[in-house]
C-alpha cells in the first residue's frame, strides 16, 4: 500500500495508513467517493430553497439564466451564502445560550458541581453591563448577568451590549451600513426569512443582512460564550501541555472528548482526577486515565485544565483507529457521523451527550447540569470497563506528541507583553509602531479533506513568523501549529524573524499564541479593540495592521467568523472560498465591494504561499497608510527554505 499524502502531520499519516491497512474508511476515503464534486453546488449555483426547484444555473452560459422564480446567479449564490452565515451564527450562539443556562442554573443552585470560578470577571462584566453590584451576593450577581445576557438572544428592542466594546468609529461604521445587530436570534431568523423563496433577492442587501447576522455571532453569541465560560470555568492562564495522537497511552484508559462545549468536558476533567475513579481504572488493569480532547473541546479543557490534545478535526476518526480509545464522548459541532461506522471496527464506545446531536445507533447518555459530575463519573467508569475489551493486536498509537503552551487571552496575553505589573497593550503597539512587529494575524479555522491536512496552516504561519508577524490562533489551526512545535517559547528561535524573536524572548511567549476555541475568536476582536484603544495605530479596526486567515475552512461557522471579521474591519483570507464563485458579482462584492462599508474585504486564494504573501502585503499597506516606522530588520533569507 502506498503511503498516504493526505496530511502534513506525520502522526496523522501513520494513523491513516494504519486505518487503511485495517480497511477502515475515514473522511478522506468517503470524500473520494464523492468526487468529482458537483460544480453547481460548489459554485453556489444550486438552489433548493423552494419546491419548484431544485434549480441550477449553468456557470458557462452567457445568457441571463434564471431559476423558476426568476432568481439569477447572484441571488442564488448570495442566498446560499447568507444561509451558511446564519447557520454558523446559530451554532456559536446556541452554544452560548447553553452556557447562559448553565450559569443561571448554577446561580439557582440547580447545577451542583458548577461554580463561578472567576468572580473578578463576573464583577467586571456586571459593571460593563450596567448592573449594580453593591450588596449583591455572587449568586445573585451571576443570576443578573445570566439573565441580562440571555436576553441578548431574544430582546425586542435595542442592539447588542458588547458592540460598545468596539471603538466609536467602528460603531458608527456599522450604523452607516445599517448592520448593527439587534438580538442574536432575531438576526438568524431574519436571514432565514430573507432567504425564503420570494423575499430578498438583491445580493447586496442579502450580504449586508448576513453581515449583521455574523456580527451578532462575533460580538454576540461567540463573545457571550467566551465570557461566561471564563466566569464559570475560570479565565485561562498560560499552561503547558502535550498535543497529538501520541498523548494516548497503551496502558491507560483513554477517553477522548470531542465537540465544542466545555460544560461536560470540565466535569469529565474533574472526575478523571478523582481518586476513586482512578482506582477503579487501576482495578481494571490500567495504569491511569488519559482524558484528551479533539477539536474545540480539546482547546477548552487544554487552556483551563492543561489536558492534552489528541488532535484536530480530521484526526477525530484516527483517534478511534488507533484502537486505543476506550470511550469517545461527543457533544455538538464538527462531530462526524462517520465516527459511528469507524467505532464499529474497534472496541471504542462512542457516546453522544447532547440532546441536540444524536447519532443513530450510538449510545446516548443525556447530559444534564443537575447530574453533571455523576454522569461524568459514569462515563469514565464505563470507559474503564471497556478498557478490558481492547484488542492489543489492533492498537497502533503514533509516537508523536509535542509540547505546547496555551491559554492566552485578550486580558492576559498583553499583560505578558507589558510585564506582570504594568499590564497594557502599549508594548504591543510600540512593537508594531517601531517596526519590530509587522502586525498581528489571526490564523484560525478548521481542517478540510479538500486541502492537505494542516499544510496550509503550517505553510502560512511559517511565512508570517519569518516576516515578524505575531500570530494568534484558535481552533483546529492552533492545534495544527501546536503539533508542529510552534506553540512553545523556544519556537521563536526556530521560526520567528528577528523582531518577533526579540519580543518573544523579552516576554517569554511563543511566537504563535493559542487563544482558545472557535467561539474564542471573540477574544481576538477584543484584543484588536484594545490595540485601537491603546492608540497610535488607527481609530478603528480596519486601520490596524492585522488580518485573519482561515485557509482550511470547512464549516458554516467558519463562514460566519470570516464575515464578522470582515464586517469588523479585518481583511480575511479564506480557502476554500464560500460557495459564491458562480456569481462574478457576488464574488466581486465580497472581495472588493465590502471595502466601502467595512474597510475590509475577503480574499479567496487556494495557494498558501500566495495567501501568506497577500497577508504580508496587506499588513505593509496598512502600515504605510498609518505612516509607521519601516520594519526594523530585513527578512532573513536563510529562513526561506
Amino acid at each position, binding site marked *: 500500500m502506498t503511503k498516504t499524502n493526505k496530511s502534513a502531520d506525520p502522526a496523522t499519516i501513520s494513523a491513516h495508513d494504519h486505518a487503511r491497512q485495517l480497511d477502515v474508511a475515514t473522511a478522506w476515503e468517503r470524500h473520494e467517493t464523492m468526487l*468529482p464534486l*458537483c*460544480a*453547481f453546488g*460548489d*459554485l453556489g449555483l444550486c438552489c433548493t430553497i423552494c419546491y419548484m426547484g431544485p434549480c*441550477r444555473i*449553468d*456557470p*458557462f*452560459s*452567457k445568457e441571463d439564466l434564471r431559476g423558476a422564480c426568476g432568481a439569477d446567479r447572484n441571488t442564488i449564490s448570495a442566498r446560499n451564502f447568507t444561509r451558511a452565515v446564519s447557520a454558523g451564527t446559530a451554532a456559536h450562539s446556541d452554544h452560548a445560550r447553553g452556557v447562559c443556562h448553565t450559569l443561571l442554573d448554577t446561580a439557582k443552585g440547580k447545577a451542583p458541581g458548577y461554580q463561578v470560578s472567576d468572580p473578578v470577571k463576573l464583577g467586571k462584566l456586571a459593571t460593563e453591563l450596567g448592573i449594580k453590584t453593591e450588596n449583591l451576593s455572587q449568586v445573585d450577581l451571576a443570576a443578573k448577568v445570566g439573565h441580562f445576557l440571555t436576553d441578548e438572544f431574544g430582546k425586542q428592542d435595542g442592539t447588542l451590549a458588547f458592540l460598545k466594546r468596539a471603538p466609536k468609529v467602528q460603531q458608527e461604521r456599522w450604523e452607516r451600513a445599517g448592520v448593527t445587530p439587534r438580538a442574536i436570534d432575531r438576526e438568524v431568523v431574519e436571514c432565514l426569512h430573507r432567504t425564503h423563496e420570494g423575499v430578498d433577492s438583491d445580493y447586496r442587501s442579502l450580504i449586508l443582512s448576513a453581515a449583521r447576522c455574523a456580527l451578532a455571532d462575533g460580538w454576540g453569541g461567540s463573545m457571550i460564550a467566551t465570557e461566561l465560560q471564563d466566569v464559570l470555568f475560570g479565565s485561562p492562564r498560560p499552561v503547558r501541555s502535550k498535543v497529538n495522537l501520541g498523548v494516548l497511552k497503551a496502558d491507560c484508559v483513554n477517553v477522548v472528548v470531542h465537540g465544542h462545549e466545555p460544560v461536560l468536558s470540565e466535569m469529565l476533567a474533574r472526575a478523571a482526577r478523582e481518586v476513586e475513579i482512578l482506582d477503579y481504572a487501576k482495578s481494571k488493569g490500567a495504569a491511569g486515565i488519559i482524558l484528551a480532547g479533539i477539536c474545540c473541546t480539546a482547546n477548552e479543557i487544554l487552556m483551563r485544565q492543561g489536558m492534552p490534545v489528541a488532535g484536530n478535526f480530521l484526526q477525530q476518526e484516527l483517534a478511534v483507529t488507533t484502537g486505543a480509545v476506550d470511550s469517545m464522548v461527543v457533544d455538538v459541532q464538527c462531530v462526524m457521523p462517520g465516527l459511528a461506522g469507524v467505532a464499529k471496527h474497534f472496541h471504542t464506545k462512542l457516546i453522544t451527550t447532547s440532546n441536540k446531536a444524536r447519532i443513530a445507533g450510538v449510545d446516548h447518555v443525556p447530559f444534564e447540569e443537575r447530574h453533571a459530575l455523576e454522569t461524568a463519573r459514569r462515563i469514565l467508569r464505563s470507559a474503564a470497563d471497556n478498557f478490558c475489551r481492547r484488542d492489543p493486536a489492533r492498537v497502533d498509537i503514533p509516537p508523536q506528541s509535542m509540547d505546547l503552551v496555551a491559554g492566552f487571552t485578550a486580558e492576559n496575553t498583553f499583560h505578558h507583553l507589558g510585564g506582570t505589573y504594568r499590564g497594557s497593550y502599549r508594548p504591543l503597539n510600540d512593537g508594531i509602531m517601531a517596526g519590530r512587529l509587522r502586525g498581528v494575524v489571526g490564523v484560525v479555522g478548521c481542517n478540510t479533506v479538500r486541502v492537505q491536512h494542516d499544510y496550509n496552516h503550517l505553510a502560512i504561519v511559517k511565512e508570517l513568523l519569518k516576516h515578524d508577524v505575531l500570530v494568534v490562533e484558535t481552533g483546529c489551526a492552533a492545534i495544527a501549529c501546536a503539533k508542529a512545535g510552534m506553540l512553545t517559547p523556544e519556537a521563536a528561535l526556530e521560526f520567528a524573524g528577528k523582531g518577533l524573536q526579540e519580543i518573544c524572548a523579552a516576554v517569554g511567549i511563543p511566537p504563535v499564541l493559542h487563544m482558545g476555541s472557535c467561539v474564542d475568536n471573540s477574544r481576538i476582536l477584543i484584543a484588536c479593540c484594545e490595540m485601537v484603544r491603546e492608540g497610535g495605530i488607527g481609530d478603528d479596526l480596519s486601520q490596524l495592521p492585522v488580518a485573519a486567515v482561515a485557509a482550511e475552512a470547512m464549516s458554516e461557522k467558519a463562514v460566519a467568523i470570516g464575515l464578522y471579521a470582515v464586517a469588523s474591519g479585518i481583511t480575511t483570507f479564506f480557502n476554500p472560498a464560500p460557495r459564491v*464563485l*458562480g456569481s462574478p458579482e457576488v464574488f466581486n462584492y465580497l472581495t472588493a465591494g465590502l471595502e466601502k462599508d467595512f474597510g475590509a474585504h475577503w480574499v479567496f486564494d*487556494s495557494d498558501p504561499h500566495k495567501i501568506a504573501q497577500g497577508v504580508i502585503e496587506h499588513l505593509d499597506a496598512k502600515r504605510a497608510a498609518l505612516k509607521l516606522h519601516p520594519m526594523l530588520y530585513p527578512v532573513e533569507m536563510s529562513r526561506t527554505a
Partner: protein
Amino acid sequence: MRNSRKVYARPDLCTGCRSCEIACAVEHSASKELLSALFESPPPRYRMDVQAVNGVKLPVNCRHCTEPDCLFACKSGAISKDLKTGEVQINLAKCVGCWMCVMVCPFGAVSPDMDRAKATKCDLCTGSASGPACVQSCPTKALIYGNADEFNAWRQP
C-alpha cells in the same frame, strides 16, 4: 468497427444533474480547472447535453456514427472518421464554421460555437489519460466509455 468505443448512457441511471456537462466544459477549457475556467473568455463549451422529456433524462452527445452525416456534409474537409477506431473528429484547424454539420446531425450533437466560429462536438477527450471527462464525472455511473458489446452487456438487467 464493432470495437469502436464511444460514450454510452443509461437513461435509467441518469439523475439529470448535468455534472457531465460541466466536466466536459472544464475539460475543454484552456485551464482544465473549474475555478479558472469560470473566468475564461470566451467561456468553454460543453459537448454533452443532458436533455429531459417526460421525466426521462437523456445525455446526448456525438454518436460517432457508422455513416456520419456530418462528415458527408463537411465542405471544408475538417471532419474525418478513423476507420480503425470509429472516432469521428473535427479538425479545428480546417473548420470554417459553415454549420453544414449542425444542419445534418440527427442527434443535434454538433453545435455551433459562435465565439470561436467552429463546430463543436464530443471528441472523446482525445489526449486525456483518464478517458472522457463526462464518464469520470457521473455520480451515478450512468455513462460508460466502451464498445457496443460492452454497452449491451452493461445495460442488461
